[in-house]
């Protein structure tokens, strides 16, 4: 969980590098990029995992290639065990395919083989059998901002059913404590006053 909060924090740091003159959506894109990169870096460095581009999903997978992890933007229910979260934006076929694999429904159509040559150091590609057996989890996050303070609700969840671009059922959910980042307490007074030093002729 410590890693996952670091991942979200890195995303928040990256989001904040966007300035008003950046194109609309830059902050969100940078957050996504930082989420993927940090999730991979921390697992590669500390757990011996490997980078995996599976279909069009940017993932990191464990050494025996049985489990992979990616990131997903959730909704307001994210992190709350009593509620049912959905992905905030419509997702493509690749998410549907790993969801099918999560349920043992095969994933013959996932084109991992295309990426064999491009996997590079620390990267892997999966055989058809491995792809069919892969269990893919997502770090779901949902960010809210009140004043200068930020709260990121989060959970690690495995999709079970995927319909029309949205996850409609989860096989397993691990709600995580929300990551909260406080704001600055601004200085309320005018700051330190002027010092007047008497300098007179003797």
């Amino acid at each position: 969980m410590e890693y996952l909060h670091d991942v979200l924090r890195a995303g928040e740091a990256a989001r904040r590098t966007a300035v008003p003159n950046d194109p609309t959506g830059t902050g969100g894109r940078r957050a996504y990029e930082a989420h993927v990169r940090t999730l991979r870096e921390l697992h590669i460095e500390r757990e011996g995992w490997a980078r995996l581009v599976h279909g069009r999903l940017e993932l990191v997978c464990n050494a025996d290639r049985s489990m992979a992890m990616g990131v997903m933007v959730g909704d307001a229910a994210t992190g709350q065990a009593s509620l049912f979260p959905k992905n905030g934006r419509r997702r493509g076929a690749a998410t549907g395919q790993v969801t099918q694999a999560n349920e043992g429904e095969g994933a013959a159509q996932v084109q991992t083989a295309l990426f064999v040559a491009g996997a590079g150091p620390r990267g892997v590609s999966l055989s058809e059998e491995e792809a069919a057996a892969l269990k893919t989890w997502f770090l779901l996050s949902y960010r809210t901002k009140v004043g200068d303070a930020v709260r990121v609700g989060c959970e690690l969840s495995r999709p079970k059913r995927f319909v029309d671009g949205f996850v409609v059922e989860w096989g397993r959910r691990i709600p995580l404590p929300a990551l909260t980042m406080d704001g600055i307490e601004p200085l309320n007074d005018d700051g330190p006053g002027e010092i007047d030093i008497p300098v007179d002729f003797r």
Partner: protein
Amino acid sequence: MVTPSRIALARKRRGMTLAQLSDRSSISLQSLSNYETGRTAPRSATLNKLASALDFPAAFFQGPPLEELPADGISWRARSKTSPRVLDAARAAGTLGATLYTWIAESFRLPAVDVPSLGRPDPETAAAMVRTRWELGEAPAPNMVHLLEAHGVRVFSLDPDHAEVDAFAVWREGVPFVFLNTLKSAERGRFDAAHELGHLVMHGSEHACSGPEAERQANAFASAFLMPRASVLGHMPSGAHVDQIIRGKRIWKVSAMALTYRLHDLSLLTDWQYRSTCAELSRLGYRSAEPESMGERETSQVLTKVFAALRTKGVKPSAVAAELGLTSEEMNRLLFGLTLTTVAGGGQQTAPTPTRHLSAVSSPPSVAARPPSNPVPAFARP
């Protein structure tokens, strides 16, 4: 009568070796050596050649011996590879600054020295003790130059040509002196001033004032003095992001890097957060500069008031320089960026964001009306 030590001082001030001075003045090495040791004295024509080569008025060499700033007691804030000759030049400039202050103190009532010598405590405690003594509480520190001056510290500018020296401080006969490089950002100037205060407080005459450990202590003192623990904990969130640090630094008027260091020091940033914050600040240019700076550098109140008061009596800075046997330019370098600087055409202007060219003075130095052996200026005599 020529004072041998003044020849050596002027040579050091110009950062010259005896051989270089010999080349420049066409005076033999042996003669120069004899003049500096006092074995022989230069004749009038030779003295003029010497004065010209060293760019000091001839009258300077005829003043009484000057008490140099003690070499041992100086805490240098300078790059580690700074050559001894540059440090000697800065120290010689410091000696001239101390001479100017002696002159000022004879005419003006200046704040009494109230800088404790604490020695023993750790920097965090020492900073808290000085804050308590100066009744600052936990509030952000006011103008650091004014604060030092109000407590009797004599603040001068370092020669702008010695960019590799950031600052130095020294006690001389119970009077603390601080010399600041006024070309750096306003925030770094404040940190330098607090750093030197740390040396004055913790590394008086009886404690080592140089070396990595003394530097670390002075940095820790400056950090704690400018950013008191309770104040930082009260204003800054745990795990502050770069944008928050850039906003937060305005509370204490410190650099973004200094606040980041303090946040890590107070465990408000983890090691990992600290490293990534430093990397991002570097990317934004905060390691070598201060992009969103507080603006104007802090300047000297005492020197500004002294020269303003002198003007009301019709005494120009050039006359003060002449009285001390200095060129106007030499004196301007001591005041550079801290107060009014005379410029070409006899006008004057403040130098809030100093750049090197402002130190140039084209008006020729006045001839010394009398040697500085009688340092009480005419207007101040009863």
